[in-house]
């Protein structure tokens, strides 16, 4: 059952990304390009996505997930360096290409060679992060 609902959720996510135009990098870059031909579409996508989730979070109160287990605990309200640096790097990459992880996967079958190259580079970055973080932490402690 968990696998079926994971598949359904991924499918719905992919359809939403396609329908909303978020697999089109010009729409994403258009939103970030405040000093150019600004495109407000992304605000409607993010706003539209937050609405069902706002109610979903309310529904989690005092309940458990349909398939058992527990809901993810709310993280402590701390803005640490890793969150800020990581988000800053992500934003730069997002602006450069106009792709974030969801749309990069959703457009994998029709994004051509460039889309595949982006996905491979992103995957390499993801795999490299835990050892990279360990190396930086070690250096930082010694300094």
């Amino acid at each position, binding site marked *: 059952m968990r696998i079926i609902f994971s598949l359904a959720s991924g499918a719905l996510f992919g359809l939403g990304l396609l329908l909303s135009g978020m697999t089109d990098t010009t729409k994403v870059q258009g939103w970030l390009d405040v000093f150019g031909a600004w495109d407000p579409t992304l605000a409607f996508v993010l706003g539209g996505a937050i609405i069902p989730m706002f109610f979903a979070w309310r529904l989690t109160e005092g309940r458990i997930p349909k398939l058992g287990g527990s809901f993810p605990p709310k993280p402590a309200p*701390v803005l640490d360096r890793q969150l800020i640096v990581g988000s800053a790097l992500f934003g730069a990459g997002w602006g450069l290409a106009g792709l974030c992880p969801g749309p990069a996967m959703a457009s994998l079958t029709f994004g051509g060679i460039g889309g595949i190259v982006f996905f491979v580079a992103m995957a390499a970055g993801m795999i490299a992060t835990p050892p990279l973080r360990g190396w930086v932490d070690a250096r930082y402690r010694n300094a």
Partner: protein
Amino acid sequence: MIDWIWGLAGGLLIGSAAALFLLVNGRIMGASGLLGGFLDGSGRNNMAERLAFIAGLVVVPMLALPFVTTQTNLTPNLLIVIIAGLLVGVGTRLANGCTSGHGVCGISRLSLRGIGATAVYLLTGGVTLLVFRHILGVI
């Protein structure tokens, strides 16, 4: 004008997908976390769930392709594509989330981390467009 209607409709679908994943499976629908945990092995106790989600996300847009007109319009400059991909990969794993996890799931929960992360990546994304499009003219 029609673009924002499609944006809103697609956004509602994205939010419904996240709500389904949360209420049924009890999990945060974060694209970078689901993929990253699959790739680096940190999600080894729920690999099948991750793979099923990714399969739906990759395959279903392909099946819908005959009914829509879409293009990714990605820059043909592969050097920029590679640098951008690396930044997105490292950044989202360091920050433990991207537009779906921090943006959609975090903001809707009024999580400080989600709101803070979203503010930072929107800011650096905007600055990147300003510098690399309007000053350097490379994207």
